């Protein structure tokens, strides 16, 4: 397409303008939080539903596997079902609060508070 040698001064000019434009956009996007681009309300709702089900399913599966291994058939499955439900609700809380999927709620809250105090 553009095979003719470009004027170096024009190139420098373009470079400077590109840098200015990039700085502009980075300033604009800086104010947004990390989890702010989670998507639409429908996306968030769908995500919450999936998180809840996944937590319970994984908890029950772990309990079932442990039961088969230790030979305590119904006991651990029941225990892990409730633990899984708790984990699911915890994940939903995280998703709804925009704390991403980070494990360790205290850590996520601290990071968010840290982000807030660090400026932006």
């Amino acid at each position, binding site marked *: 397409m553009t095979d003719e040698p470009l004027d170096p001064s024009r190139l420098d000019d373009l470079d400077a303008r590109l840098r200015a434009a990039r700085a502009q956009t980075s300033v604009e996007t800086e104010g947004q939080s990390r989890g702010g681009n989670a998507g639409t309300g429908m996306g968030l709702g*769908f*995500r919450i539903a*999936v998180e809840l089900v996944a*937590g319970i399913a994984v908890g029950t599966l772990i309990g079932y596997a442990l039961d088969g291994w230790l030979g305590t058939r119904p006991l651990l499955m029941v225990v892990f079902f409730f*633990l*899984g439900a708790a984990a699911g609700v915890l994940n939903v809380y995280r998703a709804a609060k925009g704390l991403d999927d*980070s*494990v360790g709620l*205290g*850590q996520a809250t601290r990071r968010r508070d840290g982000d807030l105090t660090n400026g932006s």
Partner: protein
Amino acid sequence: MANPVEQFRIEPLVPLEVGGVNLSFTNSALVMVLSICLVTVFLTMSVRGRALVPGRWQSVAEVLYEFVANMIRDNVGAKGRKYFPFIFTLFMFVLFGNMLGMIPYVFTYTSHIIVTFGLAIVVFIGVTIIGFMTHGLHYLRMFFPHGAPLATAIILVPIELISYCSRPFSLAIRLFANMTVGHIILKVMAGFVVALGVFGIVPMAFLGGVTVLEFGIALLQAYVFTILSCIYLHDAIHMH
């Protein structure tokens, strides 16, 4: 009316069985190979010119590159740069799978949970290994919330552990469910168009809108899958 879930049927194209394990080359595998070839050809051909002022194709390739590069920079930070090749490959594979699936008669491999789960479990295992390599056994501290009383560990640690283990499931289910549901809706609506005769114009119009929405979802889900992988990577690298 055609069966709306028939489109997800796996059909072996080249039957192959090794030691009792079915290793047939299926229609799903065909589209995967096709999408990898398309991505490779598209990226190599479009940047072959190396023009300073990019043409149309080079622009598209550069936009995709910068999109993923910015995603990693914003969500993982400077340390995540070395994982760019993997994240970019993941993004392109999911994106092309979703987009190729929108072409009529092309199989959508992201509509099978084993495919999305395979991708998610690779991310999950990789992130866990990176976490242990970066922090050693200190990484296990992640499962105990900072500042909680020690007595609560007996209940908090299993909950955090389950929460951690449910990541690949939620990642896989989200992509799989979105693609499957979208394709079933399209098929059911298309069935109504034929069944209603002249009045089929109503579902036909609806179908047009849903198709546009589906293209948006195909793009969005590839983005969501990649950004969640980036967030998991961030947690593994910067856990403090």
